[in-house]
């Protein structure tokens, strides 16, 4: 699996660098307009676009056909892509924290509460979107899966809104906002794991040619 991850890092390297630089610049730039920690919502989502660049590249070069003949199982191929996605989301989150920490050191009002809130929203949106788009990348052709990829981010915001409204029926979200988004985060993690299991099952039986 390590070799496949190295391959994906090579493919996504330039995209990752651009994302890191953009997020840092955007973080400092936004600080004059709005709360910098809000960048944590966008950062993980933006960083994971590199995963789809690697999926598109795999499809274009027919790498998937080649890698199955190598000592890498189908489970490992799927597992690597999901792991790569999580690593990119974590990288995006950490990158967005850089301007937050630097600005906090210079006295800007950035609270742990806001970091946790925006961070959990960002990670939830990313995991929900990935949970939709990653299995679809192995179900559909590259063109369709790119459409699904774009739609999945819209869908994830819709799902988060729906979940928050549902939670609001049980407890007041305004008064327990961190708890509410913590629950959303847990649901997103579970959804991402279920999605991984679905993708593994789908890919096991899929003909690659």
């Amino acid at each position: 699996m390590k070799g496949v991850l190295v391959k994906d890092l090579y493919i996504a390297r330039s995209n990752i660098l651009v994302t890191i630089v953009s997020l840092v610049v955007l973080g400092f730039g936004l600080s004059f307009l709005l709360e910098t920690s809000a960048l944590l919502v966008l950062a993980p989502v933006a960083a994971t676009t590199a995963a789809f660049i690697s999926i598109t590249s795999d499809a274009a070069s027919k790498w998937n056909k080649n890698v199955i003949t190598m000592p890498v199982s189908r489970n490992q191929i799927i597992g690597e892509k999901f792991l790569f996605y999580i690593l990119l989301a974590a990288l995006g989150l950490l990158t967005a924290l850089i301007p937050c920490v630097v600005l906090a050191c210079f006295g800007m009002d950035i609270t742990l509460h806001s970091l946790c809130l925006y961070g959990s929203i960002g990670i939830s949106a990313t995991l929900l979107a990935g949970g939709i788009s990653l299995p679809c990348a192995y179900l559909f052709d590259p063109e369709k899966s790119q459409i699904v990829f774009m739609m999945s981010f819209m869908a994830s915001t819709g799902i988060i809104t729906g979940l928050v409204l549902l939670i609001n029926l049980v407890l007041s979200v305004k008064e327990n906002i961190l708890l509410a988004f913590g629950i959303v985060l847990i649901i997103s993690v579970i959804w991402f794991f279920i999605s991984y299991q679905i993708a593994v099952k789908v890919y096991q039986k899929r003909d690659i040619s």
Partner: protein
Amino acid sequence: MANAFMVSGLTKTYKDFVLDHVSFTVPSGSIVGLIGENGAGKSTTINAALGLIQKEDGVVSILDKEELDGDIKEQIGVVFDGSNYPEILSPRKLNRVMKNIYRTWDERVYFGLLKQFSLPCDKQIKQFSKGMKMKLAISAAFSHHSRLLILDEATSGLDPVVRDDILDMLLDFVQDEEHSILVSSHITSDLEKIADYIVFIHEGKVVFEKTKDELTERYGIIKCGAAQFDALDKSDIISYRKMDYEWQILVSDRERMQKKYPKALVVPATIDEIMLLYVKGEK
């Protein structure tokens, strides 16, 4: 170990094509050529054997194991038509990827082959010609001490000089009796040069599995007119074609036919001609 590769009763059904109980073997230390026209089922056979597509029925045994696990895959080198490596990579980066995939990856062999093929180490694969990509794929297949090479139309679309280099490499590879090659191609002249056995697939079925020597040294074509054709014993005929000015009749023992029909012109048959007469001829 008797056979490096064996398929028995391999079956796969598509809407418009059936791979119908395909069976053949690749004995250890030999090169087996899988021939057939485009769409005959060569690639489907290889894909099903390698687990790329789900087989409906049949048994596949590679290096004496029916389960294609990581240990077996370590010992197989597969080359498809096209390099099938991410084009953004360079051969040097590909080395870093492959050494993290194959336990037995030997970068000395890999870089040696790159040098032998004059392939630049730091140029992106997308800037390579088709021949260079194929040389790279073959270099990778040779760099993890494979015991079995499977090449699916790997020489198609290459110029004769590159093809000749690759064929020489394949012949070198089987000098070790533990090494074997299954090569599918519709360029039968390549297989005439290197193959020990020929397996002919037509419309998803194995038509024959014979030694190359039997095909090239025993098979023949009787070229005659209509009267002579009518006089032939039909049980001697494998298949025949009526051409503009003559009849061409495929026979399995040209020397016996020459003795039986002394007035007939009996010429040796190339694998191409045998394939053509099987596919286009009447029986």
